[in-house]
């Protein structure tokens, strides 16, 4: 669900990005967009990409994969999960409504007052921004709690922390960031709303307001946010690289330590986003140096992945191509990040396209490639068939090339002095770069089209691509030991974990795919309509707040309170799946599994033969 949402929102955000690039290509002395329209575009693009593409994508992936990796039946609180999803969807719905009714904010994804205050932006735009973010941020906090409890309390017997797969580790760290980094943005948004609606003076220019506090609070959230997004991507790459190198992850303990370091350090560097505000050199130096320390654990991670490939058997599958593209490109973005961490360099390139190039260099090869790799990697697990390869490769290489064409020129024009968020310019020297960049956007668009084609082709050819083994890649962690798609109860019998790469251990020891000694009844939570109700009331609430329809806002708030109390009076509703049913499904799978193994061994084509490979 999260991922479907991300997909829809992405389609819009991509279209916007392409329009922006085209505008800037043609924008020497004007272009085809009005300045206000361009401002709305970068604001919606940034907001959507971060909050309604990257976040739901990450959340969705964790939601699907983590319970499977830790040998659990589901996340700890399925009801809470549906409420979080509903709140995220509320935010996305508000973004979409703003397209049709009224205008969106023009203040960028950062929404700094006083520009977004009532004095300078009296319209409804910033209100859309505020409520879309506030409501979805509450959902994200709840999601974080859910994930943290799931990982703490639902691990299969024997899975100590140091036996957890890397992706689960990064999910845990992301969950921690969701829990602790979202409150500042919630607070900042509510304060801004109070300024706008009730004439409070948190961030106004007059009567003692302090606009610098907004920047402070925003980045107190904003910086951890970007690591929240990148850590699960790191987790995906860890899984992908280990699997496709056919090797244990190198330096597991180092990777865990590095992940934790990054998560904690990410709370100590936020001032680097406003070195240019005029703080004292001591303040800037402290935060600059703190920022640089993040390079250490990040570097360790990159080196660890290289060492994982070293002495491996590298299969260049589509996820692996993304992983390699990521490693090559990400270190360049990291290098420019290090430069930005120097206050004196930030003085020069802050707010220029150099900065824009830096963060896309982290977000696209880092987060986006990570999510695409994860999508390709776990797709067969979720849907029961693999994604077709050919268009997958086209897309992957298209992304890599397109990314470089779009964003490397932006480094140059940034250094040449072109500021971000400018819809036109008068310096002729910028234009060639802008044109290269626009062409790159075309390549990116094409790569995206390739993804769509790939999906369509794969669905058409799903019988040929079917994954009957449950283990299409010769995977190493528990999710590959069960059928694809997994039954509602995930594991017929909760596994007993004895090793870090427990499934590999099972395969090597011949313990994989053996029927269990005993099957038990499984209790599953029943679906309830609560999520839908929260979505509807939440969307109406946000809409009412944006348009000052007070009676509706009050009614919706009352309804939410009533809903909470009503849930409180409901019993826990579960349904029981009988042991016999679980047993028969499992036997079915094991039988199919044996048949499939026999067949692929006989035909000898290029389908993966996990067992053969593992024993070789």
């Amino acid at each position, binding site marked *: 669900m999260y991922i479907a949402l991300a997909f829809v929102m992405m389609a819009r955000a991509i279209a916007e990005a392409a329009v922006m690039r085209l505008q800037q290509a043609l924008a020497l002395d004007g272009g085809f967009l009005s300045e206000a329209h361009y401002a709305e575009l970068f604001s919606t693009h940034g907001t959507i990409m971060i909050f309604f593409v990257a976040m739901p994508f990450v959340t969705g992936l964790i939601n699907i994969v983590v319970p499977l990796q830790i040998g659990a039946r589901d996340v*700890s*609180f399925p009801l809470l999960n549906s409420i979080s999803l509903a709140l995220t969807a509320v935010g996305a719905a508000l973004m979409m409504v703003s397209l049709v009714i009224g205008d969106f904010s023009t203040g960028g994804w950062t929404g700094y007052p006083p520009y977004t205050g009532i004095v300078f932006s009296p319209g409804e735009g910033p209100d859309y921004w505020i409520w879309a973010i506030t409501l979805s941020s509450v959902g994200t*906090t*709840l999601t*974080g*709690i*859910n994930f*943290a*409890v799931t990982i*703490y*309390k*639902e691990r299969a017997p024997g899975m100590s922390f140091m036996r957890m797969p890397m992706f689960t580790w990064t999910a845990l760290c992301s969950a921690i960031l969701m*829990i*602790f980094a*979202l*409150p*500042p943005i*919630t*607070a*900042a948004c*509510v*304060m801004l709303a*109070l*300024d706008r609606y*009730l*004439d*409070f*003076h*948190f961030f*106004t220019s*007059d*009567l*003692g*307001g*302090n606009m610098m*506090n907004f920047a402070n*609070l925003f980045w*107190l959230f904003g910086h951890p946010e970007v690591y929240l997004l990148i850590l699960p991507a790191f987790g995906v790459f860890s899984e992908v690289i280990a699997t496709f190198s056919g090797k244990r992850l190198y330096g597991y303990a180092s990777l865990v330590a590095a992940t934790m370091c990054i998560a904690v350090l990410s709370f100590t560097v936020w001032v680097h986003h406003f070195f240019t505000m005029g703080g004292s050199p001591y303040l800037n130096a402290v935060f600059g140096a703190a920022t640089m320390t993040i390079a250490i654990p990040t570097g360790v991670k990159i080196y660890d992945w290289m060492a994982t490939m070293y002495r491996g058997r590298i299969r260049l599958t589509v996820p692996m191509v993304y992983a390699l593209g990521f490693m090559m490109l990400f270190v360049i973005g990291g290098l420019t990040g290090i430069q930005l961490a120097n206050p004196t360099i930030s003085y020069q390139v802050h707010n220029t396209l150099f900065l824009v190039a830096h963060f896309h260099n982290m977000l696209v090869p880092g987060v986006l490639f990570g999510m695409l790799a994860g999508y390709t990697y776990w797709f067969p697990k979720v849907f029961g068939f693999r994604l077709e390869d050919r268009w997958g490769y086209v897309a992957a290489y298209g992304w890599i090339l397109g990314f470089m064409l779009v964003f490397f020129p932006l480094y140059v024009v940034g250094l040449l002095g072109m500021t971000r968020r400018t819809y036109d310019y008068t310096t002729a020297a910028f234009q060639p770069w802008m044109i290269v960049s626009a062409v790159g956007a075309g390549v990116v668009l094409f790569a995206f089209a390739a993804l769509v084609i790939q999906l369509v082709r794969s669905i058409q050819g799903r019988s040929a691509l079917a994954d009957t083994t449950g283990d299409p890649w010769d995977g190493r962690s528990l999710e590959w030991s069960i059928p694809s798609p997994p039954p509602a109860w995930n594991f017929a019998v909760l596994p007993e974990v004895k090793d870090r790469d427990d499934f590999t251990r099972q395969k090597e020891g011949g313990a994989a795919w053996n029927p269990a000694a005993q099957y038990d009844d499984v209790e599953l939570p029943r679906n309830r309509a609560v999520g839908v109700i929260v979505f509807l009331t939440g969307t109406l609430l946000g809409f009412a707040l944006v348009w000052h329809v007070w009676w509706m806002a009050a009614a919706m708030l009352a309804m939410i*309170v009533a809903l909470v*109390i009503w849930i*409180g*009076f409901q*019993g*826990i509703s579960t349904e029981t799946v009988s042991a016999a049913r679980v047993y028969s499904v499992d036997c079915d799978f094991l039988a199919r599994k044996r048949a499939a193994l026999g067949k692929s061994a006989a035909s000898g084509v290029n389908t993966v033969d996990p067992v053969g490979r593992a024993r070789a």
Partner: protein
Amino acid sequence: MTQDAPRHPGLNLGRHHPEAHAENEKLMFGFWVFLMSDLILFGIVFATYASLTNPMGQAGGPTPRDVFSLTSAAMQTAILLLSSFTFGLASLALKYRQPSLRAWLAVTLLLGLAFLGLELRDLVQMVADGAVPQRSGWLSAFWVLVPLHGLHVAAGCLWLAVMLVQVTLFGLTTQVSTRLARLSLFWHFLDVVWIGVFSVVYLGGLA
């Protein structure tokens, strides 16, 4: 022995509620994590408040000395602290399944309402004195910080009322006991936040 081993923060239910005791582990842990997130939210508002408590933030408007009453703050503090204690007694009654449970819950609810009443009285008085949030950055922060805590207490009171109904209707079922255990965490947590409020806002402002 293992049945009595604590599984979660707060008062554990132990052998008298074996099923609830086990069930509670992840519920209480989740709730505990939520409270910590809430703590950060309060921390942010506290920091904002602190950074606006200066002549610039007060913009020539009322200052703490003009609008706060130490007596009222002391009374609110005493009431809230007492309610924490009575909730403690309610928790013990719950754990040992004693009939006094409902009485202690009711006392706690009354104390909570009394606290809210006093706070409301103070706020009304401030409005009468012109100390409205629109007046200055400092007052804006005050009007978010203290009512935010008040809103939490109000939610706690509503929850208490609901639980009194549920205890009466359903008895001490697993679900009701685990909910009471979470409510007790919530209530004690609010008292911890109040320590910050009276120290930073009232005492800090009047010292």
